[in-house]
C-alpha cells in the first residue's frame, strides 16, 4: 500500500516536470501580458516616458469616446450576428448532409467544410474581389440576370458594408459547426429513429423532436466556440474595409491597434482591451445561460 502511494507520488512529480515547459510558455505569452494590460489600463503611457497612474481615467475617457462605443457596438453586433447565422446554417447543413450516406455524404461534408481551413486574411481578400463594384462577381452576376438596379458599392455603402462582412464570416464558420453537429448526430442510436419512424414521423419531425434535443450540448459548445472566435474579427475587417467607410465597420481590435500603435496611447488602448474582455466573457456567459437546459442521456 505504501509502495503504491510512493509510486503515484513520483509519477505526480514527473507529471509536474512534464507540465512545466508548457505552463512557462503560457505564463509568458498569456498570463504576464494580461496582468500587465490590466495594470497599464490604469496608467498613462506613451511608450517612452515613465508611466504614471491615473486611476480610472482611461476607462472614463473610453466610455465617453463615441468612436469607442461605436466600435464596441460593432464588435458585439458582428460577433452575435455571425455566430447566430453560422450556427443556424451549420445546423441546417448538418441536418441535410446527415441523410446522405457513404462517399456522397463525405464529399459534401468535405466541400462544405473547406472554407473553415482557409486563412481568414485570404478569405477577406477573396471577398473584396467578390464585392468589388466594377469587376466583382456579385455585381456582374446581378447584371447578368438583369437586376442591374440592385448593384451597389457593397463595401462602401453604409447600409451593406457590415452585413457583407458578416455574410463572409458566416460563409467561413458554418462548415465547422456542420461537422461538429454531424459527428454528434452520428452517435445517436439508430433505434431511436426507428421507433420514431414507426410512429409515422417524417425526417424533419424526427430532427425536431429527437436530433436537436439530443445534440443540444454540442450546439451550445459550437455556439460558445464560434462566438469566441468571431469576436476576434481583426483579419476579416482589416483586409476587407479596415474599419471604413468612416467608422462604420470599426471594431475594438481595429480601434485598439490604431490607438496604441499609431497614436502611441498605450493606456487608453489597454483600457479598451479590458472593456472588450469583459464584454466577450459576459456575452459567452449569457449565451451559455440562454441555451441552458437539461441534457438527455442516451
Amino acid at each position, binding site marked *: 500500500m505504501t509502495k503504491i502511494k510512493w509510486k503515484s507520488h513520483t509519477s505526480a512529480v514527473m507529471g509536474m516536470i512534464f507540465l512545466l515547459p508548457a505552463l512557462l510558455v503560457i505564463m509568458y505569452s498569456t498570463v504576464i501580458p494580461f496582468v500587465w494590460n490590466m495594470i497599464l489600463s490604469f496608467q498613462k503611457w506613451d511608450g517612452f516616458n515613465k508611466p504614471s497612474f491615473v486611476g480610472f481615467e482611461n476607462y472614463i475617457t473610453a466610455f465617453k469616446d463615441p468612436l469607442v462605443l461605436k466600435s464596441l457596438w460593432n464588435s458585439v453586433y458582428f460577433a452575435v450576428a455571425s455566430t447566430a447565422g453560422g450556427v443556424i446554417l451549420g445546423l441546417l447543413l448538418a441536418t441535410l448532409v446527415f441523410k446522405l450516406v457513404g462517399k456522397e455524404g463525405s464529399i459534401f461534408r468535405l466541400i462544405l467544410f473547406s472554407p473553415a481551413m482557409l486563412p481568414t486574411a485570404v478569405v477577406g*481578400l477573396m471577398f473584396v474581389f467578390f464585392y468589388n463594384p466594377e469587376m466583382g462577381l456579385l455585381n456582374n452576376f446581378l447584371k447578368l440576370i438583369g437586376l442591374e438596379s440592385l448593384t451597389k458599392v457593397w463595401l462602401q455603402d453604409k447600409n451593406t458594408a457590415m452585413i457583407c462582412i458578416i455574410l463572409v464570416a458566416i460563409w467561413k464558420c458554418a462548415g465547422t459547426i456542420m461537422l461538429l453537429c454531424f459527428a454528434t448526430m452520428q452517435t445517436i442510436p439508430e433505434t431511436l429513429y426507428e421507433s420514431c419512424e414507426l410512429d409515422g414521423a417524417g425526417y424533419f419531425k424526427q430532427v425536431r423532436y429527437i436530433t436537436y434535443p439530443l445534440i443540444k450540448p454540442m450546439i451550445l459548445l459550437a455556439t460558445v466556440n464560434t462566438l469566441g472566435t468571431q469576436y476576434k474579427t481583426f483579419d476579416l475587417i482589416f483586409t476587407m474595409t479596415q474599419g471604413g467607410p468612416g467608422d462604420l465597420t470599426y471594431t475594438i481590435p481595429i480601434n485598439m491597434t490604431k490607438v496604441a500603435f499609431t497614436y502611441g496611447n498605450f493606456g487608453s488602448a489597454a483600457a479598451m482591451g479590458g472593456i*472588450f474582455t469583459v464584454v466577450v466573457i459576459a456575452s459567452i456567459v449569457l449565451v451559455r445561460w440562454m441555451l441552458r437546459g437539461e441534457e438527455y442521456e442516451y
Partner: protein
Amino acid sequence: MNIKKMKLSEKSLIMFIRIVLVIFVISTLYPIIFVLLTSLKTSNEFYNNIWFFPKEIAWQNYQYAWVTASIGKYFLNSVIVVGITVFVSLVLAALAGYALAKLNVPKADLIMLSIFLLTMLPSESIIMPMYIMTSKLKMTGTYGALIIPYIGWGLALTIYIFRNFFKTIPMEIIEAARIDGCGEFSTFLKVVMPMMLPATATNAILLFLGWWGELLWASIELSTSSIKTLPLGITAFVQSSGTNWGPLCAASCIILIPVVGFFLLTQKYFIAGLTGGAVKG
C-alpha cells in the same frame, strides 16, 4: 402500399436534399475557383472575360507575385515560423497532455480548465504588453517574436486534444511498462509515443491551419521590420498594387495551395480529431 409510399417520399426527400446541398456547394466553391481562374488570366483578358476559363494561361502572374512582390521570400518566412511553432507546440503539449491524463498531477481538471479559460481571453487584451515585452527583450523583428507567442496561444487546444487522446489509452499498458522497470520518461517515449500518431496529426493540422494565416500579431510585431510572413506580405501587396487582380489572385493562391494540399492529404485525421475531441464517446 404504405411502405411503398414511404420509400417514394424518402427518395424524393433525398433528391431535395441533394439539390439544396448542391446550391450550397456552388456558393462555397465558386468564390475560390474564381480566384484561381483569375490568377491565370492576363489583366486584359480578365476585363473581357470575367466568368470563364482563360484562353491562354498567364503564368507570369505567379512569377510576378513570387519574385517581384517578394511573395516567395515571405513564403519561406512563413514556413520557418509555422514549422518551428508546430513542432515545439506538439512536443510541449504532448508532454503536458500526458501529464494531465496519466500522471497523477493533483487537480488535473482544474489545471486544464484554467489553461482553457486563459485562451478565452481575447488577444486584444494581450498583444499590446506582448509587444512591449518583445521589444524589451530585444526580440522585435525576429522569428522568435512570432514563434514564442504563437506556441503559447495555441497550447490550450493542443493539450486538450492530446489529453483526451491519452485518456483512451488503457492504464494497464502504462502500468505494464512501469512494472517492466521503465521510468516515466521512457514509458512515454517507448510505449505512448508510438501510439499517438492520430492525435499528433490532428494537432499538427490544426496548428498549421491556425498559424499559417495569422495576421493580427504579425502585423503589429513586424510593422517596423523587413521580415514579413505570407499573410502580411499579401495584405501589403494589396495595399500597394490596388487593382492588379491577376498577380493578386496568384499571391492568394500561393498562400492557399499548401493549405488545400495539406488539408486534402490529412482530412481523415483532421475531421476525426476535430470531432473526436468534442463528442462524448
